[in-house]
């Protein structure tokens, strides 16, 4: 280690660098509070001031801003830093040099590349305050940690025991303040890297392992994957957003005529309708998801009730065509309502900036993935079954049951307790094997068509409506 003496000899440091110190102290207070609040576990035992080391990572070195409670430093170093009245004493050049020597002896950094160079400069005194401590005198210093030439600055072991070797109840919070290398996204700063304290069981002072490589792109990707997963789970765990969409899609393969669902439309048109309706729903809920996550107030109860209404409308439409051909418009409008409900989940995370944008995208991707999976899974058998006499009953019964469930939810969300809502919610867990039943039914229908009536249009899936199919 290289020892560098203080740069400001024979001058009362306090007055000269008051401005810089003031700013530094304010930052230290804030960050100390950050460190105290954000470290896991109850560290709030200490109304006693803590040492704070704030690190700035550069491509070739790590700079540190150190703030040490003066009373602790005096106790540990034996230097006269605090007067009898508890206030800090001015630091002359000799004392500053002694502080530099002491700190340099008690800070060591190593990595795979070997020992780092540690320089301590600019020792000064200040008066500051940390969360809950009241005002206290502190010593500040600049630290420069330089790895062997060409070595990575992102992984190192900080062996720091200044103060702690003597003041056994003291602790040192190490905070990452900035990162020029971009390894840690600015949105994640400042970040607590950890704390140095005596292990009361062994009496040892474990070195702090710093590894910033885990916070690089892969970490961001993990965060994105997490948001995708959140979107998936949000939509996959219950029973109502997709029920709306799928009920709306139920008559998609059918032709509306004379205020009834009559016959079927060509498969290609059915697919185009399904795609259009699904896209409109996606567009609608994406818009309000963004607005809600950005802070648009969401009247939770009203939104939930409106969602129940939307399912009721979709169920009615599945029974009799109310708005044939305008399914995308309806899906888009009600999509706005459903998006507000999604946004509640994100708003709880209290995100901002780039993190919010990434999270929104990830969350939405998760929702769309599930939506897509469901459409792909359930629609083919429905299209096949639509060409059979079974479909009419299936559609009507589906509409009725959905309508009943939606009514239950609506009453529940308006404060009227009925067993319907709980029963509808309860369907979720039992359902994973039921799309399989639909597929089986469709296959049976196709097979029966083959063996029975030969190659009927229904069985071969031709884009031709069944003759006389007034279903």
């Amino acid at each position, binding site marked *: 280690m290289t020892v560098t003496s203080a740069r400001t000899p024979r001058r009362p440091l306090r007055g000269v660098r008051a401005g810089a110190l003031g700013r530094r102290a304010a930052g230290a207070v804030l960050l100390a509070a950050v460190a105290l609040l954000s470290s896991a576990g109850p560290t709030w*035992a200490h109304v006693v001031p803590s040492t704070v080391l704030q690190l700035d990572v550069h491509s070739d070195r790590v700079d540190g801003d150190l703030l040490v409670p003066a009373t602790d430093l005096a106790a540990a170093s034996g230097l006269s830093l605090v007067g009898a009245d508890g206030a800090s004493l001015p630091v002359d050049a000799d004392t500053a040099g002694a502080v530099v020597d002491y700190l340099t002896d008690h800070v060591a950094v190593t990595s795979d590349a070997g020992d780092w160079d540690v320089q301590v400069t600019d020792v000064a005194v200040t008066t500051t305050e940390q969360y809950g401590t009241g005002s206290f005198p502190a010593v500040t210093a600049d630290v420069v940690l330089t790895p062997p030439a060409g070595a990575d600055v992102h992984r190192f072991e900080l062996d720091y025991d200044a103060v702690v070797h003597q003041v056994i109840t003291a602790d040192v919070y190490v905070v990452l303040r900035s990162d020029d290398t971009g390894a840690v996204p600015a949105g994640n700063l400042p970040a607590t890297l950890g704390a140095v304290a005596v292990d009361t069981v062994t009496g040892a002072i474990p070195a702090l392992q710093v590894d910033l490589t885990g916070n690089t792109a892969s970490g961001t990707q993990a965060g994105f994957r997490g948001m995708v997963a959140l979107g998936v789970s949000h939509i996959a765990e219950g029973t109502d957003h997709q029920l709306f969409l799928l009920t709306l899609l139920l008559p998609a393969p059918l032709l509306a005529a004379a205020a009834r669902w009559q016959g079927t439309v060509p498969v290609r048109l059915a697919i185009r309708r399904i795609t259009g309706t699904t896209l409109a729903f996606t567009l609608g809920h994406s818009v309000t998801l963004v607005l809600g996550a950005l802070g648009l107030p969401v009247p939770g109860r009203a939104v939930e009730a409106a969602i129940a209404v939307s399912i009721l409308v979709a169920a009615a439409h599945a029974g009799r065509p109310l708005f044939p051909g305008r399914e995308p418009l309806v899906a888009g409008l009600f999509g706005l309502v459903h998006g507000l409900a999604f946004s509640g989940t994100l708003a709880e995370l209290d995100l*901002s900036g780039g993190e919010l944008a990434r999270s929104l995208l990830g969350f939405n991707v998760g929702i769309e993935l599930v939506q897509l999976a469901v459409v792909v899974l*359930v629609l083919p058998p429905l299209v096949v079954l639509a060409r059979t006499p079974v479909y009419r009953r299936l559609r009507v019964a*589906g509409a009725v049951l959905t309508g009943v469930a939606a009514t239950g939810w609506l009453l529940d969300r308006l404060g009227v307790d009925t067993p319907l809502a709980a029963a509808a919610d309860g369907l979720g867990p039992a359902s994973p094997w039921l799309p399989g039943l639909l597929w089986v039914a469709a296959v049976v229908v196709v097979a029966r068509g083959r063996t029975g009536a030969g190659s009927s249009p229904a069985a071969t899936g031709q884009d031709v409506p069944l003759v006389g199919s007034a279903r």
Partner: protein
Amino acid sequence: MNSRVSTTSIAASAAVLLSLGLVGCRSDDSSDSSSSSSASASSSGSSTSTPGSGDVVALAEAFVATLDEDQAEALQQDYTFENATNWSNFPNALLTGDFGFPGGGAPSGGPPSGGPPTGGGAGSTGSTGRVGLQTDSLTDQQWSALEDLLAGVTGSAANEGFDEILQHLAADDYLTDNGGGDDYGRGDYFIAFLGEPSDSGTWELQFGGHHLAVANTYVDGALAGATPSFRGIEPFETVEQDGETVQPEQQEQAAFAALLASLSEEQLSTARLSETYGDILLGPGNDWAFPETSEGLVGSELDDEQKALLLAAIATYVGDVDDANAESILAGYESELDDTYVAFSGNSSISEVGDYIRIDGPSVWIEFSLQNGIVLEGAHPHAVWRDKQSDYAGLTS
């Protein structure tokens, strides 16, 4: 619609509905996420348990009976390690981030309000403060029932146990009146039942606030753990508050000073620790972290008079629990005195900021540390009594 819906088509349509349900979203997960901690609430006096030793359960139920539904719900919490270890020496406002800084306002920049910042490291969780029913909601009648309960579980000697708690509450009122403001005072304490009071099974009576933590764990009607027991105090000097003389923790300080004063120079030098102590070692959050190696002067090196002084110092903490239990706990510690260490740092008078003393036995662990005043000038103590076997009645996770 066709009214002739066959059973087969109902079955088929049910299949459709259920398959739709596969991907639906139970939107009630966003509409109601009430805390799980209220799961076993509203036990208001309906328990069939019979009052056991010390009638603690009966007193607990009598207190519950005075509460309204919301209060009873706040009081009743889950018996978990997380709840049991959620005690602190801090005033509650300091834990929740609402602390108004006494005498001089907040530091420049101010504390970040609300929860922890994003990106603040893995698993960052801010504290939400103590659990349980806050005492500011109590009526006189409810306070009276609470005091009956506390009196039933604490010692009866002057300046110890129940009397100490009453003085403690008055001391915090003194802080309110002398610069501490609304973050202090007897309304900022919390009573919680972790688990339902019963003479079968396990529950903990938790009472605490600034500088105070009572943690009595009962297993099948018997006291199975009386620690961690935190006692600190500010003001440390004798004051008058609402006509009451307030001087808790002074007996403790006097007992430690008397013990160290009885030691020879040689014994003192063996007992002296080379390190500096700014606070106690095993405060809140530092659970089951007893040092592997005991330091200082071992009890077998003490003469009978010195041993009596050591036991007397221990008794100032053990005496905070009800007299019958205190007697048996103290007898256990007495039997281990030869293997119990005394260590101190700073002045042997244990009177100045930085002075520290520890009693470290096979079971007993007591620390007493003097530090700077927060609201008032002068030194004030933090102290903890823990038990290496029966902290939290042995609950470790």
